[in-house]
């Protein structure tokens, strides 16, 4: 009984933090969308000195909130493991993927904070930190794949439990989201157009789809937990 | 073998091949502007006719519940019109 309650609380924790993260990214760090990849070192350095306070405050807030994938991944693990028989290998893969992927959401605000930390250094040094932050945000697809494939497999194969948090449509949704994330890594290759780090297919569509996927998962998890709590109470 | 060859999917497949051949035959460049536009409009419209055929016949949306079929047909129509609009009036955007 306690477990479903704890899981529910943990999901709301994750939801609150992703919201704070998104708002901070947009309003304090001013990285929605990311600035053009063609900006000169001087222009980038000027951005950080003009927004020095906001960017550092944003980095502080994100230091608390950016690990929101960890709580969600843990609840997903618990919910997946109750469906799997024997060693819950897909659940473990999902947990590993989810926690590792969390790192790449933590790093960009850290790097932006470092970029804004010291306005007296040469602009080129700030530029490389800025570029590292932006490319970390957009090109890091490697761990999503494992988390998403694991969720898709369990959604599509473990279908006997009526109170599963992973309906079949969630499996298909996850496959679609995973395919659409792939475009992100191409930001290494192109500086302008829809495949640059601020473009439609590297920035807007992956982050919209990621948000939609995160909230949809939180919704199915909360719904399943409600059913499970009712069952336990009965 | 007869049951494979003389079926509805076979007729659809042959028609799709015909449409492909037609659009390739049409697709020439270096024509006067008006003719060029007509050629490209035809090529795009034929492509979406093919999409619609694959959807309705092969994906069996013809016998699907109306809302699903309507979503598909709307997509085909809107995307086709959108492409034609962007092609014909690039200065508008």
């Amino acid at each position, binding site marked *: 009984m306690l477990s479903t309650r704890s899981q529910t609380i943990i999901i709301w924790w994750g939801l609150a933090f992703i919201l704070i993260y998104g708002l901070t990214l947009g309003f304090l760090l001013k990285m929605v969308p990311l600035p053009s990849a063609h900006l000169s070192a001087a222009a980038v350095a000027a951005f950080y000195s003009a927004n020095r306070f906001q960017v550092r405050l944003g980095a502080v807030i994100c230091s608390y909130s950016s690990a929101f994938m960890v709580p969600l991944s843990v609840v997903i693990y618990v919910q997946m493991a109750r469906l799997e028989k024997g060693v819950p290998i897909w659940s473990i893969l999902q947990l590993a993927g989810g926690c590792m992927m969390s790192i790449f959401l933590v790093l960009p605000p850290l790097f932006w904070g470092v970029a804004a930390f010291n306005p007296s250094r040469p602009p080129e040094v700030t530029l490389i930190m800025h570029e590292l932050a932006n490319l970390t945000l957009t090109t890091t697809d490697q761990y999503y794949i494992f988390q998403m494939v694991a969720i898709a497999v369990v959604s599509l194969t473990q279908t006997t439990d009526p109170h599963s948090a992973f309906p079949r449509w969630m499996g298909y949704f996850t496959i679609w989201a995973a395919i659409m994330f792939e475009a992100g890594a191409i930001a290494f290759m192109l500086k302008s157009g829809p495949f640059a780090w601020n473009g439609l297919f590297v920035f807007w569509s992956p982050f919209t789809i990621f948000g939609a996927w995160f909230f949809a998962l939180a919704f199915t998890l909360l719904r399943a937990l409600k059913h499970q709590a009712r069952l336990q109470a009965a | 073998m007869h049951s494979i060859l003389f079926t509805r999917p076979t007729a659809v497949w042959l028609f799709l091949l015909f449409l492909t051949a037609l659009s390739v035959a049409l697709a020439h460049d270096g024509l006067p502007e008006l003719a060029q536009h007509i050629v490209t409009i035809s090529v795009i419209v034929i492509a979406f006719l093919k999409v619609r055929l*694959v959807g309705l016949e092969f994906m069996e949306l013809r016998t699907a519940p109306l809302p699903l079929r309507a979503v598909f047909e709307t997509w085909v129509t809107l995307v086709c019109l959108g492409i034609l609009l962007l*092609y014909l009036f*690039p*200065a508008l955007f």
Partner: protein
Amino acid sequence: MQTNTARAAPHIPGEEGLWVLVLGDMMVFSLFFLTFTYYRGQEAALFAQSQKAMNQYCGIINTVLLLTSSWFVANALNAARAGMGARAQRLFSLAGLCGLGFVLVKIFEYSGKFHAGITITTNDFFMFYFMFTGIHLVHVLIGLAVLSYAHRRAGRAVLQPADLSALECCAIFWHLVDFLWIVLFAIFYLMK
């Protein structure tokens, strides 16, 4: 008699959840098509010039391969429904062979471009060409895995309704891959 009435009633092809993936993919690809056409309108001369480097034969062969594989898949599904699992398996294999042919032609085409010094960074036309056909190629590879699953599933001694539903899902995904290519072919190879 029973099959007739079952067919007359509206039937969701595959299963409801699958359409989240299919419609989602259609949405993203429609953005691809419209983005391409928009950029084409802005850089008409460059796009027309770049298109001359396209190998139209590769495009035509691949279109025919996918249309034919879709035909095989449609027939495979009908065979499975008629209880002819072995025939369905053969047809799924043939469809898979066509899909494999598509991949080979694509590899040939890409390597031709690389040898000519054309890459994703050459210009906007080839950026779109490599990205969109590349993402589509990923769909084809997933589709090949789906077809081999369908092949195995059709091999069960007695095909239950659940098996048929799974086969329908596989077929729908493959047809999706097919019709997305139809539009890619039109805009990259034929649109002048």
